[in-house]
């Protein structure tokens, strides 16, 4: 039985490791200026944990094979007792902990603790059951104030703007697609209308919850054009699975044309 366990475990271990190593199912290509650092860290973590995975599982498999009831010899203790294992664990795991902490905190800060960038494009993002809406400030560069009591889905007033009394709101552009120009820093301000949601673009390596009552900034710079999906990752109700929007990264002139086409008269 021990031998069978050893064989099975070895097969499972090698098959899994092979699939991980071959990246058969893997992260989609990175499109964010900060994403390369995340990818490196992911790769390093996979290598570190993969090594530990292989060593531990194969050692277990070998021991299960080797030390069955009917083998020759008597029972014997691990050479040196627990101490070598403890020392090994402290060294190996300790180094990994230190490395991931120092490297990881830099990567984290580069994405989530970014300072305001010059020339960044500010886009207001509202999540609600079950859609994302994106608001651009329009030619005046100012966002209109939000009034929850004026929200009216029937008239497409998702944000609760008051253009009749608020001049800054008159030229705000609202769209169901997040269009951004390539290579330009973007600042999203996330706020939800009803319950908790989340903004996730796998290609950007960014995920950020919308928290009712808070306005949360997210900064990124997209470096590749294309269309990517924004999906909701915070359970928000029955339509959680179908809540999505497109991120369209365009050339600057295409973006300007898009803005014009969407602009209110």
């Amino acid at each position: 039985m021990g031998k069978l366990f050893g064989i099975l475990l070895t097969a499972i271990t090698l098959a899994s490791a092979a699939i991980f190593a071959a990246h058969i199912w893997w992260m989609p290509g990175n499109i964010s200026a900060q994403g390369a650092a995340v990818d490196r860290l992911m790769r390093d973590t996979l290598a570190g944990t993969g090594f530990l995975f292989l060593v531990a599982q194969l050692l277990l498999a070998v021991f299960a094979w080797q030390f069955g009831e009917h083998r020759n010899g008597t029972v014997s203790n691990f050479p040196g007792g627990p101490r070598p294992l403890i020392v090994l664990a402290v060294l190996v795991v300790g180094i990994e902990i230190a490395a991931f902490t120092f490297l990881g905190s830099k990567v984290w800060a580069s994405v989530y603790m970014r300072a305001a960038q010059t020339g960044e494009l500010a886009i207001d993002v509202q999540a609600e059951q079950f859609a994302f809406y994106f608001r651009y400030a329009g030619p005046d560069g100012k966002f209109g104030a939000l009034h929850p009591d004026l929200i009216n889905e029937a008239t497409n007033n998702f944000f609760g703007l008051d253009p009749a009394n608020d001049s800054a709101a008159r030229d705000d552009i609202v769209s169901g697609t997040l269009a951004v120009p390539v290579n330009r820093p973007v600042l999203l301000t996330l706020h939800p209308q009803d319950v908790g949601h989340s903004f996730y673009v796998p290609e950007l390596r960014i995920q950020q919850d919308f928290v009712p009552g808070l306005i949360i900034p997210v900064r990124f710079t997209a470096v590749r054009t294309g269309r990517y999906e924004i999906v909701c990752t915070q359970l928000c109700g029955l339509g959680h699975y179908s809540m999505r929007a497109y991120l369209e990264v365009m050339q600057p002139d295409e973006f300007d044309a898009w803005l014009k086409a969407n602009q209110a008269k």
Partner: protein
Amino acid sequence: MNGGEYAIGVWSLKLDQQHPFYLRFCAAALFSTAIAVLFAGCGQQGGSKEATVETPAKPSGPVLTLDPSTVGSISGTVKIEGNLKQITGIISPCAKGAAAGAPPPPPTEAKAEPANIVIYLKSGLGNYHFDTPTNPVPLDQKNCTYQPHALALMVNQPLEIENSDPVAHNIHVLSKINPQWNHSEPPGVAPIMESFSKPELAVHVICKLHPGMSAFVFVFDNPYYAVTSSSGTFDLKGVPPGTYTVEAWQQQLGTQDQVVTIAPKESKTLSFVFKSGGSSGD
């Protein structure tokens, strides 16, 4: 703890033997609190719901009988001047090539067709009794849109909701006077039958799974209503003589009222013009 380790242990066992009442009392208190909370839970708090369009007040006084020999009609047309803007960029799983990740269509000015405008009597109708029609009014979900976009029916008349799409939809009825309800409808299942017990105007019905998919339901206690097609014409037949405020409702442009007096057997024509000031509420 080796020698007298039983001391505290025995004390705790003795406590258990001598004072079982306390423990039973605590148990009973806990359970009754739980039950009390349970029953309290049957009452739920909600937010405030204010109707966006005022519902016509129920006429008072003795019930009148309709005399078919004296009825007239109100007919006419509705026009919209200007364009209506739509929100764009919303993904629709029913759009062509949606499965292949095709983009949402580019923004266009929606042709301002005078369709889906609802005409009804806001006030002036006497306290007549009308039989509830038994024929169901259909509401279909096709190409991830509600068809029709606006419909009207009478109190307690059945609404038959069908899903002709290959994807599931979720019908969420955001009524303010009638109870709100929400049903998911997978594709190809038996139609959902619902009805409304009170008159209400402009009940917003949305599909929670597909933003931008919405319909409006008007519930009346009388049969004098019409929903325009793209021609913009309406015809309210069999109206008893009287003075009425006729209201026309358009989703984005609000309501317009006109007062009209119908003598016995008279037919009058009205004309409504909605002016769009470009985008509203964006």
